[in-house]
């Protein structure tokens, strides 16, 4: 190697190091991820008022702004479900089949959830049905047709200041929150941020050009559970079943007793 080429390499290395330092510094100034690792439990408006004395109030839940043809079907189904429940013959839902909520239902926090921050990834575990979603940080989102649909979809995220901004696509069409229909074009945008040190919000905006008139926003609040470790949850022996009328029933003798 000539003296000149050594000089070029040394210069290039110095520049690369400097560039890394500059980019690193910019990244640090651009985002300041708070520590949200740990266990959380969903709280409703009442408990939120107690846990969060100041700051914004939880917006009231709004019905999905479905397009007319979908809205009519959804309202009819919800009404039928309410009537069936009132008669003591509730419709079977995914849980009765040992199926998890998927997205965005798992963020409604049926049981406590755990958030784990590791380099390049935020992982959210919902205790019920051991639901796990992985949010890959600072990665480009894929195209909808490049993803095989799943319960939790493909999530990418980035920290914008103290807010984790997440984009999720690729949810199976039968994975529905509150029975709201969606197409394969559904996109879920989330803004996850601390409102107080021990109160976390997830502002979820669902977009679907096929089924929704406009984006549908749902906000969930959670409070920290400092001493709680998530428990195992395996849907091991489901004695509830759906009969041929679509109604939930219970096997009065477990299989091991037969």
């Amino acid at each position: 190697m000539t003296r000149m080429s050594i000089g070029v390499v040394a210069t290039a290395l110095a520049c690369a190091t400097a560039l890394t330092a500059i980019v690193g510094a910019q990244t640090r100034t651009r985002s300041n991820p708070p520590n949200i690792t740990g266990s959380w439990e969903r709280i409703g408006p009442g408990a939120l008022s107690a846990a969060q004395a100041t700051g914004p109030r939880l917006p009231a839940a709004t019905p999905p702004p479905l397009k007319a043809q979908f809205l009519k079907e959804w309202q009819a189904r919800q009404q039928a479900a309410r009537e069936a429940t009132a008669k003591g013959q509730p419709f079977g839902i995914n849980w009765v089949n040992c199926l998890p909520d998927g997205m965005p239902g798992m963020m409604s926090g049926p049981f406590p959830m755990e958030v784990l921050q590791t380099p390049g990834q935020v992982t959210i575990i919902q205790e019920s049905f051991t639901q796990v979603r992985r949010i890959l940080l600072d990665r480009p989102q894929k195209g909808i047709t490049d993803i095989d649909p799943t319960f939790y979809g493909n999530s990418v995220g980035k920290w914008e200041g103290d807010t984790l901004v997440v984009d999720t696509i690729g949810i199976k069409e039968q994975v529905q929150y509150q029975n709201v229909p969606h197409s394969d074009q559904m996109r879920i945008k989330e803004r996850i941020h601390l409102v107080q040190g021990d109160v976390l919000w997830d502002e979820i905006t669902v977009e679907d050009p096929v089924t929704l008139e406009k984006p549908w926003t749902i906000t969930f609040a959670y409070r920290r559970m400092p001493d709680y470790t998530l428990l195992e949850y395996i849907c091991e022996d489901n004695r509830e079943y759906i009969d041929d009328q679509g109604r939930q029933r219970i096997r009065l003798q477990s299989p091991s007793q037969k």
Partner: protein
Amino acid sequence: MTNRHLTGVVAAGLFLLVCGSRVVAHHSFAVYDHTQTFTVTGTITRFQWTNPHGFLELDYRAADGSMKHYTIELTSINMLTRAGWTSRSVKPGDEIKAMVAPLLNGEPGGLLMELSFTDGRKLESPVPAPGTFKRTPEQELK
């Protein structure tokens, strides 16, 4: 509409009212009567510690002197754990008294409200929205 149906509708409305403002968890317990409870006294034959829900199986002596079997549904064992239960809280052979909301369809099963042991120990059942179940502890299952 019969009184029974009206009561059911009122109970369901109350359920929505109460649960609408709280976080509602899990399977519907609408198959159980929210308007009355029965007390059943018997011997545990099995304590099933599983998800999605736990179960108690027990034998009891009916009014006609015959032995009958009754199935008691519990909530998720995760909820039971958070309420202080363990997999060893109940054992086969335990003599217990259980307050249950019976199945609406008349089958021999119920949802546990409260469990009492002969030594005075009591375990509350962590059912969601317990206030929506009217307790009538004087009614014995015969």
